[in-house]
């Protein structure tokens, strides 16, 4: 109740919020005429940090300085790209070298930002401008398949912590001028680079506008990670369901870009956020499209069934043995009775203990090195699973139920959705233990109503179920053959709905050829 109330209060507050804070104009400090003034200004900005290197550079009796942060720059690059051409240039060549290799600017605040990004700056005496060149160290790890989203067939590329390489991976796969990349920055004190990627001819303008509006409101000192960004721009944080899809797979992002969605990258983060998404996007995997469509359909429907199992099965079991065991088939009654007869706890406690144990085993295993992880698996799985039954604390059937539930929950491809589903079964279990099936029905109704009400950047979250669109079901519960997907799904409001026409036209035209 309290939660709902607070949620409502929050909504009311949102409407009265004032203008965004960080839309102030960029400060400007011109380059000083005297080089010493410039040096002291820069030194002042960086508080004489020890990695700020200022070198005197005298070219043809013209006094100049070379400024860079040696923690951000590559000394080889400085030597090859700056020092040798500048020093070797004789006569009038210097000007042309400077003009061709360097970028010019006259704002010292800009100079500060560039230094932080790994640029090197050259200032000459009595010049109102400075020259800069990026010589940053690039220490990127290899592009490998992300561990948390592996596929059997298809591309094995994944994003890494380097923004530029991530964008390169996207641009490389979508070679069209329609692909737009927009750089943004967030964070009041420490700025983080964001890049928004979308297809100009597909992505809905409203969504782009809405995203920028939300970004403008962020007035945090520092955005630590893309997860925090997600929380700041998400529609409803009072929901267990994620409304933004985050992925580390290149092919997944490309697929979504082609459906008119917007991707957001952040410097230093290997995941990419996709907006707007639907509930069902979390159950798709690139494997669905790379395997044959019948198998894809089968596996996808299994996955959707697994949510139902993961959310409901423990609750149903509790309701059955606590309230209405007459629903059990005749032949099942005695085996169940014989296993639960001597259990000292009520079903809810029994189920909670086992479910929480599984969560703990998972949590313990996540952060351990692989070798110790095996030990946890053995201790958790075998020792607890078997011993707890032999000790008569938990019934055999409960172990079966908990195990099926765990397997079902982990078969959901997205970790966030899997977390949401695993979390959701606890309230349902409590409802089942106090109200039986009635409680489950109410809990389920509440969840469904919540899902129908949720929005992701102004688009319905539970599409294509609510609002219902039969055409889009082709690619949600099932996956029909690719040549059937003639239109894009409507939920992301793409500008162009048509995707293809008669991709297998060769079959009907076969007779014409002869």
């Amino acid at each position, binding site marked *: 109740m309290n939660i709902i109330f607070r949620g409502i209060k929050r909504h009311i507050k949102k409407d009265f919020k004032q203008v965004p804070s960080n839309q102030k104009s960029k400060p400007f400090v011109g380059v000083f005429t005297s080089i010493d003034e410039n040096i002291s200004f820069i030194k002042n900005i960086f508080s004489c940090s020890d990695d700020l290197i200022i070198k005197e550079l005298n070219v043809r009796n013209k006094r100049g300085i070379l400024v860079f942060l040696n923690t951000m720059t590559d000394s080889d690059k400085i030597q090859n790209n700056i020092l040798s051409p500048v020093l070797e240039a004789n006569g009038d060549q210097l000007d042309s070298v400077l003009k061709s290799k360097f970028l010019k600017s006259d704002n010292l605040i800009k100079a500060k930002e560039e230094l932080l990004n790994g640029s090197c700056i050259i200032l000459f005496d009595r010049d109102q401008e400075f020259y800069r060149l990026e010589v940053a160290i690039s220490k990127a790890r290899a592009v490998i398949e992300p561990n948390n989203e592996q596929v059997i067939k298809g591309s094995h590329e994944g994003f890494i912590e380097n923004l530029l390489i991530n964008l390169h991976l996207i641009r490389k796969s979508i070679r069209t001028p329609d692909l737009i990349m927009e750089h943004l920055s967030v964070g009041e004190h420490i700025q983080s680079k964001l890049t928004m990627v979308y297809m100009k001819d597909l992505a809905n303008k409203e969504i782009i506008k809405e995203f920028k509006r939300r970004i403008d409101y962020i007035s945090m000192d520092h955005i630590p990670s893309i997860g925090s960004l997600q929380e700041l721009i998400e529609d409803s944080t009072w929901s267990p369901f994620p409304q933004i899809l985050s992925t580390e797979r290149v092919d997944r992002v490309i697929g979504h870009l082609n459906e008119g969605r917007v991707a957001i990258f952040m410097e230093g983060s290997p995941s990419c956020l996709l907006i707007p998404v639907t509930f069902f996007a979390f159950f798709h995997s690139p494997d669905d499209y790379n395997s044959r469509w019948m198998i894809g359909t089968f596996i996808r429907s299994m996955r959707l069934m697994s949510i139902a199992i993961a959310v409901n099965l423990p609750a149903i079991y509790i309701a059955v043995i606590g309230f209405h065991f*007459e629903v059990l088939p005749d032949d099942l009654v005695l085996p169940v009775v014989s296993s639960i007869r001597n259990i000292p706890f009520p079903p809810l406690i029994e189920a909670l203990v086992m479910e929480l144990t599984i969560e703990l085993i998972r949590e313990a295993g996540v952060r351990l090195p692989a070798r110790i992880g095996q030990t946890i698996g053995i201790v958790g799985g075998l020792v607890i699973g078997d011993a707890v039954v032999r000790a008569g604390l938990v019934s055999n059937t409960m172990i079966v139920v908990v195990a099926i539930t765990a397997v079902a929950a982990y078969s959901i491809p997205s970790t966030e959705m899997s977390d949401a589903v695993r979390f959701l079964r606890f309230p349902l279990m409590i409802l089942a233990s106090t*109200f039986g099936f009635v409680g489950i029905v109410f809990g389920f109704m509440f969840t469904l109503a919540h899902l129908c009400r949720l929005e992701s950047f102004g688009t319905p979250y539970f599409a294509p179920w609510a609002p219902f669109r039969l055409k889009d079901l082709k690619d949600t519960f099932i996956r029909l053959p690719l040549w059937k997907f003639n239109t894009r799904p409507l939920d992301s409001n793409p500008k162009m709905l048509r995707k293809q026409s008669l991709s297998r036209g060769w079959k009907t035209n076969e007779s014409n050829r002869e």
Partner: protein
Amino acid sequence: MKGIKSILLVLCFLLTGCWDQHLMKNAVLVQILSFDLTPKEELLLGVSIPIIEESSGGPQAMVKSETFSASGHTPRDSRLKIDHEIAGILDTSKNKLILFGERMAGTGIYPSLDVIWRDPRNSLGATLGVVEGEAVDLLGIKPKHETNVSEYIQDALTSAEENSVIPSQTIQTLASEMIDPGEDTVLPFLKMNKKKSAVVVGLALMNDKKYSGNLPPQESTLLLLLENKKGKNARFTKKVNKDDQHVVNEYISFNVQDMKRKLKVQVKDREVFVSINLDLKISVEEYPKGDVPKDIERLNKLLSKELTEDAKQVITKIQQANCDAFGIGRRLIAFHPKTWEVQDKKDYFKNIKFNTTVKAEIIKHGIVR
């Protein structure tokens, strides 16, 4: 303070449901109920409950059954007495069988079933049966191959249902038939065999709600065919040849493959005539003498004649028992209400004139001649 209040509110809301909790581990499941009359004309209720024996390490626990009984004025009264005797709460929601002793059934079965329809926790999927002698004795049998008595009797009834010895019915389906004045029910008739096994020995015929006679298996199958309630199989064995060297060669066994029944109710001068035409397509399963095709004409004729005679006998029997298994009364109420009004509501069935013909035709005789 605010937090405590909201937690209390949530708890008040959630814990209301616990009142209805009905834990399975505390329940003692009843698998068979039996009703008998004691010599003092009191009701003797017998229950059979499963006893689960923990097998050491084996996957399946052994299930035996134990019988408790108590006498009282009503079923609930007796049940309360049994409840005092056993550990746990008696629960009839998974009950599979309700058995009546012959004497109890003779005085009427409806009063003891009242509680089963009234209390929603009772199982409506249970099967009814009448037992020769005392029903409670049948609960104590010790069959060798199946230690759980209810499972055993249940299986016996299922196989009898498949072989069209008894109709497939539950208390739910019987309820409307039982209270209908124009229709009577037939129930499985069981017999105890040397304290070891139970045998389905045909059908118990009910006159309204009272037991009034029984039919042996072959006749009960024929009755079910006449009622158009054939199960999976309907097998007969008939004597068709005379004075053969081997006695086996005198007989033929056949199964009814397909059937058509026509039942017509006609009223002439307030007299009710019923004609039943049964058209059986049969397949020969056993004919030790051999060469069915040669004999086919004769067999068809002979079997038709024999079955017609049998059918007539069956009808005489059910008329004697005054058991309107065909629901002729219902038809009269529906189509001839005026005739029904002048009929004797109790004994109308005895006065109905039946004209029964059975036609048998061999359509299969297996892969030998």
